[in-house]
């Protein structure tokens, strides 16, 4: 098992958390995820996830035109996205506690 497989299940909540911190465009979100330590995150996966979260109503989007290059599509979080993120934070906290307890020798002992 490597981090890439684990990442698949939690990419949604990771992306939501990054966008909640500040609106971002596709590659900006990728960069923030990578600098947070998710080195292996694929940019296409992030763009697709952004699109899916947008379709689900968790994100809003707006296009910012650029004079010297192609326009950028920014994403921001919606109230529904915040609700979703809050819920998933709790789920993650419980799950990670469970896993940590399970995987830590002292706790198992």
């Amino acid at each position, binding site marked *: 098992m490597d981090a890439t497989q684990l990442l698949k299940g939690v990419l949604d909540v990771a992306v939501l958390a990054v966008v909640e911190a500040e609106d971002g465009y*596709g590659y900006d979100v990728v960069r923030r995820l990578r600098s947070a330590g998710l080195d292996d995150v694929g940019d*296409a996966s992030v763009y697709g996830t952004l*699109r899916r979260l947008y379709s689900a109503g968790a994100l809003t989007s707006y296009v910012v035109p650029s004079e010297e290059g192609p326009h950028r599509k920014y994403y921001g979080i919606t109230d529904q996205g915040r609700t979703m993120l809050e819920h998933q934070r709790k789920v993650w906290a419980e799950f990670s506690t469970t896993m940590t307890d399970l995987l830590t020798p002292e706790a198992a002992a």
Partner: protein
Amino acid sequence: MTTTVPTEIASFAASVRAALADLPAEEVEELTEGLEADLAEAFREDLARELGDPEVYAVELRTAAGLPAPEPTSRRSSVVDKVRDLGRDTRSLVSDHPVLERTVDFVVSLRPAWWLLRAWAAWVLVGGVLGTGGGLGSLVVLVLFAIGSVALGLGRWPGWVTGIIVAGNVAAAVVVLAMLAYLPSSFGSSYTDGDSYASADLTGVYLDGQQVTNIFAYGADGQPLSDVQLFDQDGRPLATSVPGGNGCLDPDCVDLGLWAPMTLVTGQPAYNVYPMSMVEAYSDDYGTLRPVTGATAVPRPSPFLQVPALTPAG
């Protein structure tokens, strides 16, 4: 897609879009909007980064977006593959050229008009086969066809349904083209309103290949008749001249004249009233004949003062 995007990024993005081409156009647009900007930035930041396989990239993109995987291509025949490749090449060519892209966008925006046009074509076809005439029932059928056609256009369909739709489109296009070829002749033959007089410009009355410019009618007693309205067998005004039609006032054509129509009680000019008179005219600066101010229409010399009378009928 401006000059600041390297060519390889533009073509990579085009290939990604092509690999998503089985999805609805709006979905592809939403999914890849801003892709060039993201790729360009990633490229600038990490020069060692390879762009990789656009198809793999597209699969990653659509999987993450929760969209269906493309239909397996293995069952496709090589001809279908070639057509598909051709479409892909065309799409990337188009997306590399903004003018082409705008043109395609414009043509795509006309799709609803085509949906209505093909509904009409189907209606014409069905009407022709079943021999149904006009009437309310026929109109209801037309409306139903229009609704069905738009629904077909808006929906997403499995491959075999798309095949049927394509075949139907071809049939509809043939009907529309055939109707286009038929329309001018059917318009040209209807002299039902004032405007149609003008369109009679190239028509006229001919006798043995020579144009008839005026008609002289004589009664049963052989005496000339005046102000006779003539029509052909279909009820079309038998007009030898049209508005602006000109002639010569004298045999040597020194003085020009304009044929002078009569006026019906409806207010419309009538060019089928004989013998027709002519009003003196002059050629204006643009070469158009205009009636001389104050000139009155004068009768044309008749070929016969009178003709033999008829023997009494019965």
